[in-house]
């Protein structure tokens, strides 16, 4: 019984911590100004969110298409099986789209680089 009590405490603590962190992130988020695309850890390109654009990262057999439209960035025509990267549109500072199989990360950054702690 004592172990079950500990389990419950653990569960509640983790859930509370996660919610607090989530809440903090949502409250503190600001709008981004541009997206930075990295492939395999190396910079691929930087694109402003205020200019609509379509960029193919990779080729037709393996890659993702980055689309910036109406101030938001998203991915289409991803060659990965899950297509998790296609599900979201991002525009807040720090948000990212990740395609693990293609090792591609699209991150929103603010205009002022000093604002980021990372």
């Amino acid at each position, binding site marked *: 019984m004592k172990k079950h009590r500990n389990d419950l405490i653990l*569960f509640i603590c*983790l859930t509370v911590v996660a919610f607090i962190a989530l809440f903090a992130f949502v409250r503190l988020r600001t709008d981004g100004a541009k997206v930075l695309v*990295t492939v395999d850890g190396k910079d691929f390109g930087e694109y402003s969110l205020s200019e609509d654009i379509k960029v193919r990262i990779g080729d037709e057999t393996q890659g993702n298409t980055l689309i910036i439209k109406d101030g938001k960035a998203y991915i289409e025509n991803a060659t990965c099986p899950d297509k998790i990267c296609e*599900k*979201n549109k991002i525009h807040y500072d720090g*948000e990212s789209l990740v395609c*693990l199989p293609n090792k591609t990360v699209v991150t929103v950054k603010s205009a002022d680089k000093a604002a980021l702690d*990372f």
Partner: protein
Amino acid sequence: MQRKITLLGLTLAGAMLLSYVESLIPPLSTVPGIKIGLANIAVIFALCRIGTREAYFASLIRVLLSSLLFGNAVSVIYGLCGAVLSLISMTILKKINIFSVLGISIVGAVMHNVGQILAAIIILGSNVIVLYLPILILSGTITGAIIGVLSAVTIKRIKA
């Protein structure tokens, strides 16, 4: 000794099967790395009923095989990182003995996600991925609880 090897073989087979079943489920969410983790039932079973070494074996071989079969080449590294961190934490918790199977499973699940995030940060060279942590901790806690319950039932019911 032979009994352990047999049990280990069966456990690994069970883990592979559970992995396969899980690969049939479409992605649960937009965040990479969120899974129910059914195969961990077999790992926890091995940890609690067979032995620590067998649990490591079952988990690592399972991750290797299933990511080659059902995932892609890159997912091997992520899976192994998550599995190693998860195994270490579960082994320690089992020794300290303050949590039941449920708590061990929860921590194992969360650490598995944390391990994958750390691997992603290193491989992709992008620090912002750490923003996924709260969601992954949350999903790890919930899925860990579910798997924990299933594991507890499995441990109780299987007479080996």
